[in-house]
């Protein structure tokens, strides 16, 4: 039987959700027995592969790279999960939204703040431009299931993956969807 293929991706977030993913500890070995992690920030894969069964996406869509990767993930994954509060709601990443124009924010942070060198980082092709507003993943691509939490605790991630491996959607009732 073909192994299930699972990917995890990291957009605009702190990587805390991936830390929590690693907190699944020895269960990760069990996971490796039944599924291949075909793409992940913790695996050194450059290209997002085709025909992924399920992708867990951490982080909000904050810049052009995030957007591009989100679209690619959607095109190449059977199921997409918003993994953690940033993907689900924008969360901390989206706290810049009330402040408006990102250029103005960069100006305030890099130029006007006294302890900076007065330069906005600018490296075309390396530092991706910010989007006008940070958006939750489901406002950019279709999302099949949501796993809130900041981060979602390891046992909830495990429960979600177990469900996915059995061909079901993760539980979305009760404490399984507690935010924060």
């Amino acid at each position: 039987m073909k192994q299930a293929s699972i990917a995890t991706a990291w957009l605009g977030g702190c990587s805390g959700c991936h830390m929590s993913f690693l907190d699944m500890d020895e269960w990760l070995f069990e996971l490796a027995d039944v599924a291949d992690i075909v793409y992940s920030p913790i695996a050194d894969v450059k290209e997002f592969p085709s025909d992924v069964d399920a992708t867990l996406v951490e982080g909000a869509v904050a810049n052009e790279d995030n957007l591009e990767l989100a679209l690619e993930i959607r095109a190449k994954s059977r199921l997409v999960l918003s993994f953690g509060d940033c993907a689900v709601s924008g969360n901390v990443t989206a706290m810049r939204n009330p402040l408006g124009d990102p250029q103005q924010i960069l100006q305030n942070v890099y130029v006007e703040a006294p302890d900076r060198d007065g330069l906005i980082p600018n490296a075309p092709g390396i530092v991706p431009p910010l989007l006008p507003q940070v958006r939750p993943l489901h406002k950019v691509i279709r999302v099949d299931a949501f796993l809130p939490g900041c981060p979602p605790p390891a046992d909830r991630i495990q429960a979600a993956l177990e469900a996915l491996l059995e061909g079901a959607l993760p539980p979305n009732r009760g404490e399984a969807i507690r935010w924060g």
Partner: protein
Amino acid sequence: MRDTRPTVNISFDGVDYEGYVGESVLECARRNGVTIPSLCFLEGLSVWGGCRICVVEVAEGHRLRPACATQVTPDMEIKIETPRLRAYRKSVLELLFAEGNHVCAVCVSNGKCELQDMAVFSGMDHVRYDYQAPRREVDASHPKYVFDPNRCILCTRCVRVCDEIEGAHVWDISYRGEHAELITEMNRPWGDSLSCTWCGKCVAVCPTGSLAYEGRSIGEMEHDPVMIKRLAVARSRGEWLDPEGAI
């Protein structure tokens, strides 16, 4: 204390219960251990009826009514857990989350928040609507308390408790519709308020992290809304040390 009020027969989701004449559907449900979720309602304060979380279906005509403001009547058939009501409750909650800037992860009330609990109860795993991301300034001018309007859901518990129980009327709502916002006095910093008595009742009753003690960090704020009920029982029945009867 035995209740001698006349009773009526009612049902919640098909199960029969006894209600008292003059009692609201919400009170009756609580007394009988039936859960009707609610947010703006708080025992001991006047009924506001604005959050619309507690709407229930009353058999005749399937009109929705706020449980907090509807009195039980004989043979009333009340539905709480219908697919329609579940969907509506979730939508109303999503609207509240979309309206403010609710970031549980960095909130003083994380893990101890009525709004967050309501999301869990209602099965709200994401918000369909656009986040409005309003720009609202935190008021940290008070020496003892902090007001963060980003987390305010306009339940007006603070307005009511300050006016009705403390008698200071420091708080009110300004503007209207999407621009409605809590204010203290002439929309000046709370710390400048001459009428605030520092009694902390507004902080005690806040269902979210909007009103909190100064200096609390993430997840450290615990509110005490039941204080108002205790106070009401103490004042009306002279029972100061009977938390069991009060709660």
